[in-house]
């Protein structure tokens, strides 16, 4: 706490001092009568003022989902009492006050404990540190002011609201472990694939007796095995175009969460690459713990300005396993991301690009050079998507008013009809 004299104290002392000098100089008792009230106020105020002693504690729920309400509590305890205590809780961008007051002035008696309840609304995903919590204590006459800031404040982790996905993208190749994806290869499984003549070593339960009876020789059924996938979610955090209701990074993070949840439910291994000013990665893993890891890593995703040229060479090899499906969510605004995606494709990775379009968050001027520049920018974005598509990448534009499911269906349709390009 920092104690200081208020402007009122200096003003009163100045008036009293110069009033007394004037009284001596002029020799009029009225000046003393005018000065005496300020001397009295100074004397009483300084006599009553002491070092304020109190403790503050700020608590809040640590986890919430976007749109949830987060209860928070400020507890003030004082053994000696405080004549006036102003408490102001500053909130980070992702949290807004729903009920209660961010700034409160209160009087605390000796040994009193007070709880200030506050309900916050989680408006945006992220790891938000509450505070700082500013406090200002004043004595009865407001002559001495003590100010301080509570250093230890809790972090509220707001998880992104996610869409429910009914169908997700199927990878070109599956992995070796069991999962929910019916592999294109043949092997031990449930899904019927084909029939072939019996060979030595085929188990008896594989024999298709009806077909064998028709052909007068033994035929066996073949099936597709159920395998899992490796899915790498690639989030481009080089740039974020924001509007009043959100931004491209918000959409990308929400979509990534939804995709991670959907793939992990299918027992697939999910990894994460946050490609931006700071490169973050998470090696593929499966299970609920991995989902939490992915979401926690996403919460720390921010746009950090950097001119350092980052390529996919800096990504650890284990983060990009062979035959993994890479789903990139990018606004296609930074050349480093575009080059990295083309590089990934050139290395043979199964790549899909969801272009989180910044266009809805921008505004075209009516006419003039700015309008022409805007139109050229739109055309260049189309050309860039076309370039990716020519490289065999399913690149689809996603606008914020379209459900993610519709975008995934569009990607699936592209992958169904597109031929694999060798670049």
């Amino acid at each position, binding site marked *: 706490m920092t104690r200081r*004299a208020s*402007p*009122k*104290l*200096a*003003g*009163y*002392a*100045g*008036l*009293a*001092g*110069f*009033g*007394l*000098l*004037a*009284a*001596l100089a*002029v020799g*009029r*008792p*009225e*000046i*003393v*009568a*005018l*000065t*005496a*009230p*300020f*001397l*009295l*106020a100074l004397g*009483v105020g300084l006599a009553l003022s002491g070092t304020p002693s109190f403790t503050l504690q700020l608590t809040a729920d640590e986890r919430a989902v976007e749109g949830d309400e987060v209860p928070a509590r400020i507890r003030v305890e004082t053994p000696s009492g405080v*004549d*006036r205590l*102003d408490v*102001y809780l500053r909130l980070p961008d992702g949290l807004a006050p729903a009920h209660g*007051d*961010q*700034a*409160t*002035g*209160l*009087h605390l008696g000796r040994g009193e404990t007070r709880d200030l309840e506050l309900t916050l609304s989680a408006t945006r995903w992220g790891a938000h540190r509450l505070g700082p919590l500013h406090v200002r204590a004043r004595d*009865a*006459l*407001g002559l001495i002011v003590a100010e301080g800031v509570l250093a230890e404040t809790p972090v509220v982790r707001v998880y992104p609201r996610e869409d429910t996905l009914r169908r997700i993208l199927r990878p070109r190749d599956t992995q070796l472990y069991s999962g929910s994806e019916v592999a294109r290869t043949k092997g031990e499984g449930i899904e019927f694939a084909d029939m072939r003549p019996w060979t030595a070593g085929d188990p008896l339960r594989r024999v298709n007796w009806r077909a064998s009876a028709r052909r007068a020789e033994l035929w066996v059924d073949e099936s597709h095995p159920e395998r899992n996938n490796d899915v790498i979610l690639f989030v481009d955090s080089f740039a974020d175009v924001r509007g009043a209701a959100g931004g491209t990074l918000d959409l990308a993070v929400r979509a990534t969460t939804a995709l991670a949840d959907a793939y992990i439910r299918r027992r697939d291994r999910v990894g994460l690459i946050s490609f931006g000013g700071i490169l973050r990665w998470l090696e593929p893993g499966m299970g609920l713990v991995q989902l939490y890891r992915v979401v926690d890593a996403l919460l720390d995703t921010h746009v950090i300005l950097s001119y350092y040229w980052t390529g996919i060479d800096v990504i650890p090899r284990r983060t990009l396993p062979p035959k993994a499906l890479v789903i990139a969510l990018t606004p296609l605004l930074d050349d480093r991301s575009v080059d990295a995606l083309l590089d990934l494709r050139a290395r043979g990775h199964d790549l899909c690009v969801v272009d989180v379009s910044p266009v809805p968050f921008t505004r075209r001027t009516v006419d003039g050079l700015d309008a022409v520049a805007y139109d050229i920018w739109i055309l260049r974005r189309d050309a860039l998507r076309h370039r990716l598509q020519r490289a065999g990448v399913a690149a689809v534009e996603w606008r914020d008013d379209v459900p993610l499911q519709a975008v995934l269906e569009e990607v699936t349709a592209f992958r169904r009809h597109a031929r694999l390009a060798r670049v």
Partner: protein
Amino acid sequence: MTAVAALLAVAGYAASAGGTVAAAGGGIAAAGAVVGAVAVLLRLPSLVPWALAAAASGYVLARTHHARVDGWSPVVGAAILLAAELATWSIDDDRRIREERTLVIRQVVVVAALVLAAAAVGFVLVGAAAISASAGLVATAVGVAAAVSAVALVLRLLR
């Protein structure tokens, strides 16, 4: 507004003393009220002492040609203190801060008690001054010491 009204009351009382000098004193005190209003409206706490000083100077100027000690001067002093307290309260008040009702009541009680006590002390001082008009060398020395101490306190606070 009550703070400005208190300063205007001081100006009116000063002007009512009669004569050209009293009218000038009333004018200076009224200017102090205007400065006080500006300080409150623009939230400039540094202007408040100047407003008070102007009001007090105007009153003293108005009393210059009166030989008798004004018996109501403690009330004038209390009114200036009331103006100071209310102006400071108004400037410090922030509508974004929700104040508890007990806090407001407590503040009102404190200001009222302070003003009444100031008036009472002022009456005692004026009474004492009236009894001993010529105090002598020792009382003058004590007064000078008190004034110098007050100025030293101000300089220390300003540093």
